[in-house]
């Protein structure tokens, strides 16, 4: 028997594959397309203390091998989320990871506290959204701010916290260490790279927000390098994110040092991406005669 179970901060996932926040809603829309019970976990869209409207449209633009988004974290707020989305997700045999956003530290803490007694397994603290003015990336580009918000949230969180890092920094290792010092239980990386697109025929930006976050296979080499760098700089478990399309990509991240992976943009390209990823990992382990996926983590040389 092959073991694909991995452990993130004490939470055991049946396999290392889950959706990246914001590309899967709370799973409902994907229900007839894939089996949610197959997933290692579901990571929800970012949730704030009150409903957020997000940015004006156009909110997305396709780029070469990738896409830009500036959704701006539209979400129903924690109340509706708990009443509806969490109730929905609890039906499935999968772990629940809630992506938390806020404009201020106290916003974040409000969400984290509301989730304290809920059936949520892990909290993914998004300090890396490039598409909102306050909060988001403001915490994610400065080690001191990252450490502060991490330690403040850690004090109140009943679930282990994953800090989601931004790639838009000079040295990802400094950010990772700051989160580690602040008490993070795990890290996820990367969020999107800041990018833009211009319509030369109108002379205007393709996105109403002017800039957006670049995601998709185009960014995979950057994400993979950051995961590798981070894995060699901190002791925390890492969830690798960025351009993962299939088992081969997922395994690259695992070899680079990730314990688990999130699939984002590829869910739009093919909703079956995550299931294929899981099957492909199993096949790879079998073929190679590797009995435990954990023995692969960080073994690249």
């Amino acid at each position, binding site marked *: 028997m092959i073991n694909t179970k991995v452990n993130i901060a004490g939470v055991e996932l049946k396999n290392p594959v889950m959706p990246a926040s*914001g*590309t*899967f*809603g709370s799973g*409902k*829309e*994907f*229900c*007839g*397309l894939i089996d949610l019970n197959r997933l290692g976990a579901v990571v929800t*869209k970012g949730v704030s203390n009150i*409903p*957020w*409207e*997000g940015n004006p*449209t*156009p*909110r*997305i*633009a*396709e780029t*070469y*091998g*990738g*896409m830009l*988004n500036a*959704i701006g974290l*539209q*979400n*129903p*707020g924690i109340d*509706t989320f708990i009443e509806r989305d969490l109730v929905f997700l609890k039906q499935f045999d999968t772990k629940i990871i809630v992506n938390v956003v806020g404009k201020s530290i106290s916003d974040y803490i409000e969400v984290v506290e509301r989730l304290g007694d809920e059936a949520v397994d892990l909290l993914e603290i998004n300090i890396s959204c490039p598409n909102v003015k306050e909060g988001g990336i403001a915490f994610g580009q400065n080690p001191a701010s990252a450490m502060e918000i991490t330690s403040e949230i850690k004090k109140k969180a009943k679930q282990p916290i994953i800090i989601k890092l931004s790639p838009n920094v000079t040295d990802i290792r400094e950010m990772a260490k700051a989160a580690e010092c602040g008490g993070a239980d795990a890290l996820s990386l990367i969020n999107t790279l800041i990018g833009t697109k211009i319509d030369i025929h109108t002379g205007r930006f393709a996105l109403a927000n002017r800039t957006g976050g670049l995601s*998709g*296979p185009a960014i995979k080499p950057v994400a993979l390098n950051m995961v590798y760098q981070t894995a060699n700089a901190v002791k925390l478990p890492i969830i690798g994110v960025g351009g993962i399309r299939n088992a081969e990509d997922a395994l690259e991240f695992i070899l680079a040092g990730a314990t688990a992976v999130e699939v984002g*943009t590829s*869910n*739009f*390209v*093919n*909703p*079956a991406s995550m299931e294929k990823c899981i099957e492909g990992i199993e096949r790879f382990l079998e073929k190679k005669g590797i009995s435990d996926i954990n023995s692969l983590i960080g073994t690249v040389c």
Partner: protein
Amino acid sequence: MEYKRESVLITSQVKITSDIYRISFQSVTMAQNGKPGQFVTVYCRDGSRLLPRPFGISEIDKEKNEVSFVYKVVGGGTEEFTTYRPGEFMEVMGPLGNGFSLDGKKALLVGGGTGIPILLELAKQIKQTTGREAVTVVGFRDETYLTAELSKYSRVLVATEDGSKGTKGNVLDVINQSGLEADVVYACGPHPMLRALKNHFGPLQVELQISMEEKMACGIGACLACTCKSRETDPYTKVHNKRICKEGPVFDSNEVLL
């Protein structure tokens, strides 16, 4: 859930104007569950283009399990689709969105540009269900298309900007000149056209169902890329941003900001 992503067999591909094509394919799910006003998303073969391209369903043949859409070549994706041949497969998801609501009232159908094709299945179903032919007003820049097909199910009035066919002007000119009236108006086309229709029919208290467009990533309501400002709060996030791919693409014109 009624939508599926499938590898579908292409049954025909026809060039109908200099830059507009109709493609038909086989899908039980989409043919049996599809309604006029719903759409499908098509996935490119070329790996540099990731996102699905949405197209309104133009015809449904439930007996043959065949679905068609009509597309204009505007960029890389639609350029790619022109190379697809009958017998090949393409990746499609659908049927998506809400579709028009048909209620047997006296209907006027109005379309402009690439908004015209979806009126075909609508006209057909109106004729089939009510026994009556609706009036369809279609506006073009110059080259007309689909008017013969639309005439099978409805009385068609044409406007062209250059006056080469039908009335010189736009669909509103036709509606005004012909004094067209209706209990419900179904419309799909560019924003200025939709706005003009709203200004015209709004004061007359005529129900106006419009089909909207926005850039999409998931096409199924999960990513919140395709929202539009709505009067009512949306069911998903309880703000005022309805998802065109889910609560739409068809909206009551009073419901959304144009």
